[in-house]
């Protein structure tokens, strides 16, 4: 909280026209975005879209070929230690010393930082209390991932990079991890997330950006991405016995169709449409089975954005 209010306008990450090429291949091809302090920013995209390359440039693991990048006001290509003091990194599939215990590892990594959180507090935050004295090599996949998070948090970082943090978690563990990440934001921390899970992005992210072919093709709030909030909603129900599609009253709708015995209506006025349909049914004492009203999900929008079309060279080449 205090960080947020002291430097209200400060950007945690600022990226301008970022490029990274390997030979003639442009892995990152002119990417620009900003991440404000205290927000959860999520980078989405299919494999090979350039997500990991972008993140690793910001983490200081790779050098950019062009453009500009600032992380907490520091150039990640030269920032080195000052940056690493303030940044926590959870990489994909990254080992730890297998013969040290959870407690020892958190204690060991904590000492590297000038500012550090108490070891027991971090163990509790990562829900590893019962595994405190277990060696890293004896942990399960989910416990290992929680240890990764603990090691990223022990230096009390301002900014945390999470590369697919809940891969391999069961649904319960994912919920726990999500609430941990949410609680980081309440402390004024900034979170940069990459994920394959749309529900994760929907639940955690303040803003998302979708990458494909080394470029950002859409960005915005999860519920507004790709005009999601402006799309027609879908009303579905089973056609009551003894009625036809023509019996359903006139509704302000983009389309109405019958799929088997299911009526599917796309409308920009879902509240009014729902009322008309339900009133019609109640007045005639008809049973509307499987009645539902849904907005397009983030996943629908994502698949639409990243699906094959004339811009998607990789898919085109693969299908040739």
């Amino acid at each position: 909280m205090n960080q947020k209010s002291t430097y209200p306008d400060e950007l945690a990450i600022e990226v301008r026209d970022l490029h990274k090429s390997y030979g003639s291949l442009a892995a990152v091809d002119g990417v620009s975005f900003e991440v404000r302090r205290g927000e959860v920013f999520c980078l989405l995209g299919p494999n090979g879209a350039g997500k990991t390359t972008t993140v690793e440039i910001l983490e200081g693991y790779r050098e950019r070929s062009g453009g500009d990048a600032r992380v907490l006001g520091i150039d990640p290509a030269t920032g080195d230690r000052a940056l690493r003091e303030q940044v926590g990194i959870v990489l994909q599939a990254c080992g730890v010393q297998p013969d040290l215990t959870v407690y020892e590892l958190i204690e060991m990594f904590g000492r590297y930082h000038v500012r550090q959180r108490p070891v027991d507090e971090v163990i509790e935050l990562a829900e590893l209390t019962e595994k405190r004295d277990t060696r890293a090599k004896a942990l399960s996949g989910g416990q290992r991932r929680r240890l990764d998070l603990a090691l990223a948090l022990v230096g009390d970082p301002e900014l945390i990079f999470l590369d697919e943090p809940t891969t391999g978690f069961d649904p319960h563990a994912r919920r726990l991890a999500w609430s941990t990440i949410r609680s980081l934001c309440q402390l004024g921390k900034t979170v940069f997330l990459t994920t394959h899970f749309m529900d994760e992005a929907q639940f955690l992210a303040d803003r998302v950006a979708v990458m494909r072919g080394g470029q950002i093709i859409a960005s915005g709030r999860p519920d507004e991405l790709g005009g999601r909030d402006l799309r027609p909603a879908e009303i579905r129900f089973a056609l009551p016995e003894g009625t036809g599609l023509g019996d359903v009253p006139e509704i302000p709708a983009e389309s109405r169709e019958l799929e088997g015995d299911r009526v599917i209506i796309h409308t920009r006025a879902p509240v009014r449409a729902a009322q008309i349909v339900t009133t019609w049914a109640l007045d005639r004492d008809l049973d509307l089975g499987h009645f539902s009203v849904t907005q397009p999900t983030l996943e629908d929008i994502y698949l639409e954005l990243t699906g094959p079309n004339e811009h998607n060279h990789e898919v085109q080449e693969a299908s040739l």
Partner: protein
Amino acid sequence: MSTLSQRLIPQSTFRRDLGLVAWQIRYEQRSYWRNRGRGIFTFVFPIMFLAIFASLDKGQTISTRGNIAFNDFFVPGILAYGVIATTFVNLAIGTAILRDQGILKRMQGTPLPRWAYIAARIGSTFLIMMAMTVVVLGLGAAVWGLDFRAASVPGLIITLLLGTAAFTTLGIGIARFIPNSEAAPVVVNLMILPLTFISNIWFPVDSLPQALKTIAGIFPIKALADGLQYVFDPRHHGVGVSGQDIKVLAIWTVVGIFLMLRFLQKPMGDVA
């Protein structure tokens, strides 16, 4: 905005970094001694060979070396092997594993300076080498009557230090040439084992063909074995420094430092 980060983070001092090196050595030591597999490879093997050779020794002497006791040959020979096992073998295999498991990459993402991490790995290796030396020389002196002369202690220390320097830096530098950690034990032993048979480690090579002796003379294994055997050779009375062997070890230390720095210059993200 860079002033902001400086305000938030107190400046690290060199003294604090030295403290971090000591801190890291503690954890490197814990890691090492808890991993039985690697301990057997590097620490137990030399001691096991010492016991095997001692059991074969029935008071033989070496005719090509003025009939000195076999003890005074094989104890320093196995000490040389022990130095190579605890430094070169341990670090080459260990570094390949750290690289393949992404531990080097993880360490690079922390504020621990890279030089401090490497210094701690070297410091920890040095402690393991010292422990092995104490055990081998202690057993050699107590059980097999190794001829120990106070006058040659400077030679012993110089030869051990230079040998350790050469094989430590080479061990880290060679990791570049190890394709993956599963192949590491094979690759490393392929580099070491054949040479040990022409390098005075297991038996005197005085009567081997000149060509083989010339090949062995290029590499640091024979230089280390010869240097240590010179220290314990009862026919010598000086400080125990064998100039030619020291020269070879010094050259290989320079090569080792060069290879190690090349390995360290590469960003660990790209290494993985």
